[in-house]
């Protein structure tokens, strides 16, 4: 098995896709770093004060002002209210949720890329894992070896897991390394609050507790990895089912983007919460943001994703071991 996985890793590396992904991340991170830097600078300029409390207070005031506008949508109002009570909670506990520093940037970066950017990157890697063998004809050589088909597919799946881990790691390392140049490398021990839960438009703080930022980041990366694995598994399934890599990418791209759109507008369509793509934003539960649909929670979303993932996995393996190859 190790040999098989090694083979798959070799092919992955030789196809240069991993490098491309790393390059994309290496290109995007400075972009976001600059944006973040600009934002902080802008705020400083506007307020002429460097104290984060003032900035946060300013944001709270801004939010309150927006809330007092009558033209605001219910959706948005709910979101703002939750945001507001959270910000106030941070302020009350004297915790700066955005103290600048590479770890903070890392955290904000993954929180924002968990539902679209990272799944897209994973998809680029995984989409052609099986379909390229089919379209390139190499599958005929691969499957006429003295190795059972499920073992071959499993080796590909494991290679997929490894490359997902690699991508997530590159995001971590690159975002830390690059943003640290601007924001400094400290801040791992900064305390952060987690355990918020949302019921209706109330923020429940019963289970709120403090974790140091390094643990918080590790937890978020764990969730990011989980999301990427599920997206990877589904892409993998499509890659087994379809010969054309472009078709795999097209379908995944459409569903991921549909998920991003749906998450913003499905609050009244309750059964939409069973789609995998509206459940990708797992880090929101840790940081205590409003859920797109009532009744969603970390446990719920993870279970929905798990069901999709397991189904995809089974479909992939059953079809692959039974299928006739022409």
């Amino acid at each position, binding site marked *: 098995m190790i*040999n*098989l996985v*090694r*083979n798959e890793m*070799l*092919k992955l590396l*030789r*196809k*240069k896709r991993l490098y491309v992904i790393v390059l994309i991340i290496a290109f995007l991170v400075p972009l976001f770093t600059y944006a973040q830097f600009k934002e902080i600078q802008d705020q400083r300029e506007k307020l002429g004060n460097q104290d984060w409390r003032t900035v946060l207070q300013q944001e709270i005031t801004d939010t309150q002002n927006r809330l007092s506008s009558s033209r605001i949508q219910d959706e948005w109002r709910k979101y703002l209210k939750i945001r507001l009570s959270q910000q106030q909670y941070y302020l009350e506990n004297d915790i700066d949720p955005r103290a600048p520093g590479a770890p903070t940037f890392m955290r904000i970066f993954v929180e924002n890329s968990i539902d679209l950017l990272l799944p897209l990157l994973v998809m680029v890697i995984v989409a052609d894992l099986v379909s390229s063998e089919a379209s*390139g*004809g*190499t599958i*005929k*050589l*691969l*499957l*006429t*070896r*003295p*190795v*059972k088909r499920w073992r071959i597919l499993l080796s590909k799946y494991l290679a997929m897991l490894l490359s997902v881990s690699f991508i997530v790691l590159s995001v971590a390392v690159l975002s830390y390394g690059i943003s640290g140049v601007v924001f400094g490398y400290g801040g791992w021990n900064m305390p952060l609050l987690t355990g918020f839960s949302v019921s209706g438009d109330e923020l429940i703080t019963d289970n709120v507790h403090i974790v140091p930022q390094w643990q918080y980041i590790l937890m978020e990366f764990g969730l990011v990895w989980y999301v990427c694995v599920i997206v990877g598994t589904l892409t993998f399934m499509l890659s087994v089912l379809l010969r054309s890599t472009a078709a795999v990418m097209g379908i995944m791209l459409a569903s991921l983007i549909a998920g991003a759109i749906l998450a913003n507008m499905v609050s009244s369509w309750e059964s939409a919460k069973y789609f995998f793509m509206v459940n990708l934003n797992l880090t929101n539960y840790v940081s205590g943001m409003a859920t797109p649909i009532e009744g969603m929670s970390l446990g719920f979303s993870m279970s929905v994703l798990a069901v999709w993932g397991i189904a995809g996995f089974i479909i992939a393996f059953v079809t692959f071991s*039974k299928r*006739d*190859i*022409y």
Partner: protein
Amino acid sequence: MSQSPALEVENLTKRIKGKQIIKGVSFTLFPGEVFGFLGPNGAGKTTTIRMIVGLISPTSGTIKIGGRNVRTDFTEAMRHLGCIVENPELYPFLTGWENLEHFAKMDPSIPKSRLQEVITLVGLSNRIHDRVSTYSLGMRQRLGIAQALLGRPKVLILDEPTNGLDPAGIREMREFIRQLAREENLSVLVSSHLLSEIQLMCDRVAIISKGSVIRTDSVQNLLAEQERVIWKAEPLPLAKQLLSEETEVTEGADGTLITLYNEPLLPDWNEKLVKGGVKVKEMRTQLPSLEDLFLEVTGGESID
């Protein structure tokens, strides 16, 4: 040929969407022989081969490679098999060496030294560390054979091995295949729609048409059966009349008569003609091409 068969195919059928594609194909390959699988495109050659190598599961029938059943004992059966199905599609982004190493790793029984052996055998030593995307078709074909030979198979299956090769390449390939059978005692199954190729390469041949084998025999036998005698004689009408009293006669081009080759009776026929006042100018035997043969057995179905 008293050895145990290297490949046994028995009553193989395949149904796709209610349509019977392969209708009970059976044949056997013995060690050291080159077996031709001959038929027009769409006759079911490739489907049959894909079933043998395990890419397609048969609807019914058994396939045994080296005595192991492909369906129940896939791994062991595959140990004894090397194949190229259609084109040798290798990973273009890997080097030749990496490609071979990749496939060698999939079978733990292949020692590392085997790589160098097959590379020497197919004569690719110079370019083995170049990327496959830079290879010519002939080189890819050779690399394909190298990967097929990695596991010291008992059976080598080559689907259309000379497809796309130039005449020199075709001749080289043909000699190489014969050499493998002779020196390594390999059974080689070669499929082709080109009759001349089979004729030059194979010991035995199975003719397949519309999903069933219509004839399996040694190339020698098939040819002998169809051997003819060409007569040049004067006067032609008289000769024809006399001969038709003894056997079936057809009139050939440029004033010749054609009869079947029947060794014991041939002197009598000749004597009869001479006695009847016919001058026999020329009498020769002719081997028909497989083209003629094919037309004969399939009843005139076109080949391409």
